[in-house]
C-alpha cells in the first residue's frame, strides 16, 4: 500500500498530510516523557525490527504470500503513541531512502499505514481485551483480531481517500470492493502473525508488552485461549464492526456515491484545474453542502455511532477474565 506520487490528487495529499502531521505531532507529545527519558534508542531499534519484519514474507495460501504491516503489532507491543511514532518513522524512511511510496504521497501513506493501523488497531485490541479473558490467551486472540481489523481499516481509509482524490474515473464502490475484499484476506495473515508474535514475547518477556501490562503473573501463565463461544462472539463483533462501516457507505446515498465519484474523479480532474477539483477548493466554495463532504460526514458519524454502541454493549458484558468472585 505504499502509494506513489500522483496517485491521489494534490488536495487530498495536502489534507491527509495535515491530518497525519497533526496526529503524529500529538503522538509525539503523548510519547514525550517515554521518549525523553529512556526510549529513543529503543524506539529506533524496534522501528528497525518492524522494518525488517516487513521484509519477511509468509505464505497465505495457494502460492500467495503476504508480509507484515506491523501497525497494530507495534501499538500493542509499545503502546499506541510510541507505536504510531515508530511506524511513522518506518514509512518516512521507506519513502525517503528506499523510494518505496512517494514523497508527496506521504500524507495518505502515513494515514493508511501508520496512524490508522496503530490507533485503529489499538482501539480494536482494547475493545477485545474487554470481551476476552484477562489471560495471555486472551491477549493473543485480541492481538489477532486487532491485526486483522487494522489492515481492513486501512484499506477502507484508502478507498475513502480515493473517493475524494481519485485521479481516474474508477468508481468508489469498485475500489472499495476490491481493496476491502483483498484486505479481508491479507488481514488474516497480519492477524495470525501478529498474534503468534505477541504469544512468543508473552512466553519469554511478558513485561515488554505494553498491551499486556495489566496482567499479573498468574494471568500470564494462563495461556488457554478464550473458549469457543467467546471467540465466536468476538468474531461476530469484529465482522459487525466492519460491516457497519461498509454499510454506512453503501446505504448513505448509493446514487449520490456514484455521482460524487464521477464528479471528483472524472469530470473534475479531466476538465478543471488542479485546485478547483481538490477537496480544499470544495471546502472553500461549497462547504458542507457539498455532496462529497456530507457523504463522508455521514460515513464517519455512522462509524462513530457504531463504535459507541459497541462500547456500550461491551461495557455491559461482564468481563469473563474476572472469574474469581471477589
Amino acid at each position, binding site marked *: 500500500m505504499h502509494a506513489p506520487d500522483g496517485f491521489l490528487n494534490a488536495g487530498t495529499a495536502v489534507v491527509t498530510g495535515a491530518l497525519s502531521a497533526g496526529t503524529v505531532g500529538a503522538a*509525539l507529545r503523548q510519547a514525550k516523557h517515554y521518549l525523553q527519558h529512556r*526510549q529513543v534508542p529503543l524506539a529506533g*531499534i524496534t522501528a*528497525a525490527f518492524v522494518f525488517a519484519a516487513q521484509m519477511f514474507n509468509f505464505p497465505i495460501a495457494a502460492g500467495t504470500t503476504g508480509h507484515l504491516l506491523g501497525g497494530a503489532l507495534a501499538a500493542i507491543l509499545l503502546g499506541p503513541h510510541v507505536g504510531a511514532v515508530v511506524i511513522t518513522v518506518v514509512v518516512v524512511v521507506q519513502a525517503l*531512502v528506499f523510494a518505496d511510496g*512517494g514523497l*508527496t504521497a506521504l500524507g495518505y501513506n502515513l494515514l493508511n499505514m501508520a496512524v490508522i493501523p496503530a490507533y485503529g488497531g489499538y482501539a480494536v485490541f482494547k475493545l477485545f481485551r474487554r470481551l476476552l479473558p484477562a489471560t495471555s490467551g486472551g491477549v493473543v486472540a485480541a492481538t489477532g483480531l486487532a491485526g486483522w481489523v487494522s489492515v481492513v481499516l486501512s484499506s477502507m481509509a484508502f478507498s475513502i481517500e480515493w473517493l475524494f482524490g481519485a*485521479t*481516474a474515473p474508477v468508481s468508489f464502490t*469498485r475500489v472499495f470492493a476490491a481493496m476491502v475484499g483483498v484486505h479481508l484476506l491479507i488481514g488474516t495473515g497480519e492477524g495470525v502473525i501478529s498474534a503468534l508474535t505477541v504469544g512468543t514475547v508473552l512466553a519469554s518477556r511478558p513485561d515488554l508488552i505494553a498491551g499486556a501490562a495489566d496482567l499479573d503473573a498468574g494471568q500470564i501463565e494462563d495461556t488457554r485461549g478464550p473458549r469457543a463461544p467467546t471467540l465466536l462472539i468476538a468474531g461476530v463483533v469484529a465482522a459487525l464492526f466492519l460491516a457497519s462501516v461498509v454499510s454506512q457507505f453503501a446505504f448513505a446515498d448509493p446514487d449520490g456515491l456514484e455521482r460524487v465519484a464521477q464528479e471528483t474523479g472524472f469530470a473534475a480532474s479531466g476538465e478543471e484545474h488542479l485546485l478547483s477539483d481538490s477537496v480544499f477548493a470544495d471546502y472553500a466554495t461549497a462547504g458542507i453542502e457539498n455532496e462529497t463532504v456530507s457523504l463522508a460526514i455521514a460515513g464517519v458519524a455512522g462509524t462513530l455511532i457504531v463504535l459507541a454502541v459497541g462500547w456500550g454493549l461491551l461495557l455491559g458484558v461482564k468481563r469473563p477474565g474476572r472469574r474469581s468472585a471477589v
Partner: protein
Amino acid sequence: MGAGHAHALYVHEHSAVHRLAPEAKLAAALSFIAAVAVTPREAVWAFGLYALVLALVLAAARVPPRFLFLRLLGILPFVAFAFLIPFVATGDRVEVLGIEVSGEGLWGAWNILAKATLGAATSIGLAATTEVPKLIEGLGALKVPAVLVSIAAFMIRYLELIAEELGRMRMAMAARGYDPHWLGQVKPIAAAAGAMFVRSYERGERVHSAMLARGYSGVMPVLRPAGAGWFDWLLAMTLPLTGVVIAAVALVVT
C-alpha cells in the same frame, strides 16, 4: 523491499550533486516532485521536459541508467494497477488496438504512471547521491522534530543488523526443512519475529546504557557541521525552480 541494503541505494561518485548539502537536496527533490504532482496530465510535453531535466541531473551525478531502471522496478505493483484502470474505468469508450477502453481511464493511467515514475526517479536520485546518514541529517536541518530524526538514525543504524539476523533465522529454518505453504504453518516465522522483538528491545536497553555511560542526559548532542551555504541552496534549487516554471506554464496553457 528486496533492496534492504543501504549500500545498494548509494552510487559512489564525486559529482557536484553528491557534494550538495543534504537538506538542500532534500528540499529540492521534494519541491520538484510537488511541481510534477500538480501538473495537469494533459500537458504531456511538460512530463517530457521533467524527464529531460531529471535525466540531466542524474547524468551529472553519474547515476547509471541501469541502476535507475532496476530501482524503478519497485513501483511495479502500482504500474500494474495503472494498466488496469482503462479497463475498469467509466466514461467515453475509445478503441485501442481493437480493444474498447475508457478514454478517461487512459488519461488516469497515464497520470499515475508519469507522476509515479518521475517521483520515484527523483527519490532514487536523491538516495543515490546522498548517503543515508546524511539524508537523515538533512531531515533534522529541515526542522523535522529531533525525536523523529533520532529514531530514524537509530533505525538506520540497526536495520541491517536486525534484517541479517532475521535472515539467518529464516535460513536456519530452511536448513532444517521448513518450507511453509499456507498460513497454518507460519508459527515458526512468528516465533522468530517474537524472539527478534525481544532481542531488539534488549539491545535498545543496552544501547541506552552505553549512551548513559558516555554522559547522555536525554538529549542527543548536536554534532552537525555548518549547514548548507547559499551556494548549495542556489545550485540545488535550480531543479525545482525549473520544475515550477514548467508546472506554471502547463497550468496556464492547459
